[in-house]
């Protein structure tokens, strides 16, 4: 198996040898063909050939840890813009949704306010909509705002408080809540 550079339309093998994996497809003639520029990777155990694209995806993919900004809070769903991802680039803003399943007994959802910055994981993608979750460890709000006056909330003894309104909010936070440098460096962002 030669590891020549592949590009869109380049024949990799016939389907009897390997099945198409990521960035490969079956042509009308029954050949496995590359769909991107990259080097083919032949998995001889699974009999799958994929292509390692020379371009990292500009879109978030399932499993990515992403930073998002809450845009709209509804009963069962929180809509947000994905603005960055860990260890990669998200060039354009993408729509994400944190779906909240009401659990018996507990308060259904850590509340969000529009503008909150949240670290979440991409759980699934269907038709360009990303479902996000903050259920796992290390995920949650990194910067939140007061529901009433819009000020930054300060982390104090397990809850977030607004200094002006003297109100405490319960939200799932990350360990580096409010630490701008940590947020920026983690997501490869620059202050602009």
């Amino acid at each position, binding site marked *: 198996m030669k590891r020549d550079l592949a590009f869109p*339309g380049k024949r990799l093998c016939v389907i009897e040898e390997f099945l198409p994996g990521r960035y490969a497809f079956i042509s009308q003639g029954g050949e496995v063909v590359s*769909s*991107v*520029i990259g080097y083919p990777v032949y998995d001889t155990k699974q009999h799958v050939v994929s292509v390692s694209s020379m*371009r*990292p995806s500009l879109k978030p993919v399932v499993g990515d840890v992403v930073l998002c900004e809450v845009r709209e809070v509804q009963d069962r769903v929180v809509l947000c813009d994905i603005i960055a991802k860990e260890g990669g680039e998200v060039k354009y*803003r993408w*729509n994400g949704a944190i779906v909240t399943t009401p659990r018996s007994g507990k308060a259904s959802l850590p509340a969000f306010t529009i503008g909150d910055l949240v670290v979440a994981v991409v759980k699934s993608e269907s*038709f360009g909509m990303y479902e996000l979750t903050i259920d796992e460890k290390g995920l949650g709000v990194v910067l939140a705002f007061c529901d009433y006056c819009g000020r930054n909330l300060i982390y104090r003894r397990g809850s977030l408080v607004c200094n002006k309104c003297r109100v405490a909010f319960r939200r799932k936070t990350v360990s580096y809540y409010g630490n701008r440098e940590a947020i920026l460096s983690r997501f490869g962002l620059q202050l602009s």
Partner: protein
Amino acid sequence: MRGAEMNELRLFREDGLRIDGRRVDELRPVKMEVGVLDKSDGSAYIEMGKTKIFAAVFGPKEAHPRHLSQPHRAILNCRYHMATFSVEERKHPGMTRREIELSKVIKESLESLVFLNEYPRSAIDVYIEVVQADAGTRTAGLTAASLALADAGIQMNDLCCGVAVGKVGGRIVLDPSEEEDKHGEADMPIAIAPRQNSIVLLQLNGRMTREEMRLGIEMARKGIEVLYSVQIAALTKRVRSSHQGGSGRY
């Protein structure tokens, strides 16, 4: 046929070659480069004779305005545009009817290459900017656009290459120059996805017999094999140079 005879005198030399010294089935000098623009997600530059074109790709990104987005596939926007200084007399900077038509034609050709259903609700924007026009801009633009899309990492079933075939002085010639195009009897731009061996663009301006058309397509196929090898060389060079710390995000 007086006109054709005149053109034969004007556009062919005594030794049977064309006025610029080419054989009837010879392309103009071709140059292609991939990844020439840093700000776009993918880009390419092409020169065919005196025709010089940049192509830039942005996306996939979310489609805006949202009501235009398609739930199951990407929308591909294409803008073919000629710079004001690309022709002898200043062209007004807006989109002419011809540019709008060519944008549509090129868009439809590119749509047959891109796996649009891989990018639901997304948009892919393709910009083709002709900086110097000397015939064959739609096919050269399409050739560059397919390179720019590949450079952007967008999934496609093939690249594509295009070239025009002309009927000049009664003879079928490959890749006519502006001079030949102006005095020619017919012009037939053709673009092919070489590995799929499918024609993605074919237009005919003027008249050709069935036999001339067959000959023209055959001639274009041979020219396209040459163009395709130049495309592959340009892509390979791009990958090599980016490994050596060149520009781009590879």
